[in-house]
């Protein structure tokens, strides 16, 4: 549907509703940021009595927070790499040929995010228990990579679908072998989509808490740390600062993913 060419103006009701909806979506995030600078440490009193930067220093000195942050970054990095490899392979297979069970393969890829996270989490935990595998860094990665694959797959497949097959045939006709074609034709073509998919997968993994609670054992990622603070608050101002930090770390890759694919038809992240 194109924008209105007859010069009709949106009614006041529509404008109010749209603006109200967007404010509803963003004011709470702004409030978190505001509270991170609050000088009041015992309660969530509004308006905040004064501004201070003190809690940023306190938060970065805390060893538990630094460990959780480090673990989250490592898990997100490894899960993203696994998801980028597996997602690209699956996208290439689905694009390249029609085969028996192709629909089933797409369904299988989507299932980990179509079903509620708690089902993925508890299923993995039950399986780990049955197989007597102890919780570790790798059990967290297994859970995260499983639901990140589809993110990369969606982005890369969308790009493949708009890639002209004739390019690949031309490359082969001109004497390049399969690996040269992969390196000089296919990879440059899908590069931005692959990168955007990876960015989104990273943000998704860095922020994930539901599946992680089932596969982490005693370790805490940053979201797990936050969850324990939400259930049993200890130092509220520190939690506020960490919350702002999480917002900042996840916003960067998402904005980058958006910019990378903005000029193409399928903007990354339009489906989760």
């Amino acid at each position, binding site marked *: *549907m194109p924008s209105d060419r007859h010069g009709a103006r949106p009614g006041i009701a529509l404008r109010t509703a749209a603006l109200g909806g967007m404010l509803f979506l963003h004011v709470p995030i702004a*409030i978190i940021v505001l509270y991170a600078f609050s000088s009041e440490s015992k309660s969530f009193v509004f308006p905040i009595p004064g501004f201070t930067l003190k809690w940023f220093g306190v938060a970065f000195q805390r060893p538990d927070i630094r460990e959780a942050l480090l673990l989250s970054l490592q898990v997100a990095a490894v899960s993203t790499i696994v998801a980028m490899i597996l997602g690209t392979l699956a996208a*290439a297979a689905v694009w390249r040929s029609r085969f028996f069970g192709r629909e089933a393969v797409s369904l*299988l890829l989507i*299932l980990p995010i179509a079903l509620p996270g*708690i089902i993925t989490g508890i299923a993995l935990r039950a399986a780990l228990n049955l197989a007597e595998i102890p919780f570790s860094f790798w059990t967290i990665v297994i859970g995260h990579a499983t639901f990140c694959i589809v993110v990369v797959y969606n982005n890369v497949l969308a790009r493949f679908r708009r890639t002209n097959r004739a390019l690949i045939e031309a490359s082969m006709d001109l004497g390049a072998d399969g690996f040269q074609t992969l390196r000089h034709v296919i990879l440059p073509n899908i590069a931005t989509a692959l990168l955007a998919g990876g960015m989104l997968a990273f943000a998704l993994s860095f922020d994930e808490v539901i599946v992680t609670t089932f596969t982490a054992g005693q370790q805490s990622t940053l979201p797990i740390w936050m969850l324990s603070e939400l259930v049993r608050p200890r130092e509220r101002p520190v939690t506020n600062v960490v919350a702002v930090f999480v917002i900042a770390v996840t916003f960067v890759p998402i904005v980058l993913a958006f910019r990378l694919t903005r000029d193409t038809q399928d903007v990354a992240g339009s489906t989760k």
Partner: protein
Amino acid sequence: MNTLALPADGPLRRLSTRLIGGPRLMLFLLLAPPLAWLGIIYLGSLFALLAQSFFSIDEFSGVVVREFSFATYREFLGNPSNHDIVLRTVTMAACVTVACAVIAFPIAYYSVRFAGPRLKALIYLGVMLPLWSSYLVRVYSWKLILAREGIVNWFANALGLGGVLEAVLELPVVGGPSLSTSHLGTFIVFVYIWLPFMILPVIAALERVPASVIEASGDLGARPRETFRRVILPLAFPGIVAGSIFTFSLTLGDYIIPGIIGPSTPYLGQAVYAHQGVAGNIPMAAAFTIVPIVIMGAYLALAKRLGAFDAL
């Protein structure tokens, strides 16, 4: 004249020729790693979980008995408080879905029909950011907002609406001692968290309404209001159904939001979590997870008939 040197027939090139020459081998090599990962790790786990719902727990020792029986399902179905949990969760999911659709539609409609390219991109990014990030932080923000000394109360009092807030909280069912411990609070946070999942599919559906259809409607004498009601809205409906798949499914499975904001009455996700956690009753937890799987299966079948998959 230079002759173009053909690359030497090295081992890599021979391998490449074999792969290109044998499409089945190539397909196998591409598909095997992702299918092995998802098939073994994910589906394997899922089946292991479902199989365990046919185990039962020994009442005296609390040990899981690994023998096929319907005992767990009998116990699950025979307990009226379980029915309440399912009913409460499904009702909440339905209310949240309707509210999300009502709030999402004007945003999507404005963005597609009236916004210029810059504003459109801004709205798009503004919806995408909360969709992909900061789930827990966004839940947490409502703890600040709904707290007794927090913003909502301050505004209500400043505007002289403190009495209205009190009256709302005294309503049966939705009310409670404070906003952060009422069903209303849980509802607001659910709507807030899942709203982006509704906006994007509706935008996608509206983008696909052809200009010619709208013009034809106008040319045939329909007033804008009629065009909206009888042309645009029906064409956008599959987008709303597509969004509702997410809002509904995510509400069914969430166990964190009702645990943090709301009264202590349990929801489906919390029941699953409690059974597998402290109680160690994996069979009962597995039996509980059947409920969202069955509901979502039926929902997806219905959504497919309404054309929602084309709008995804």
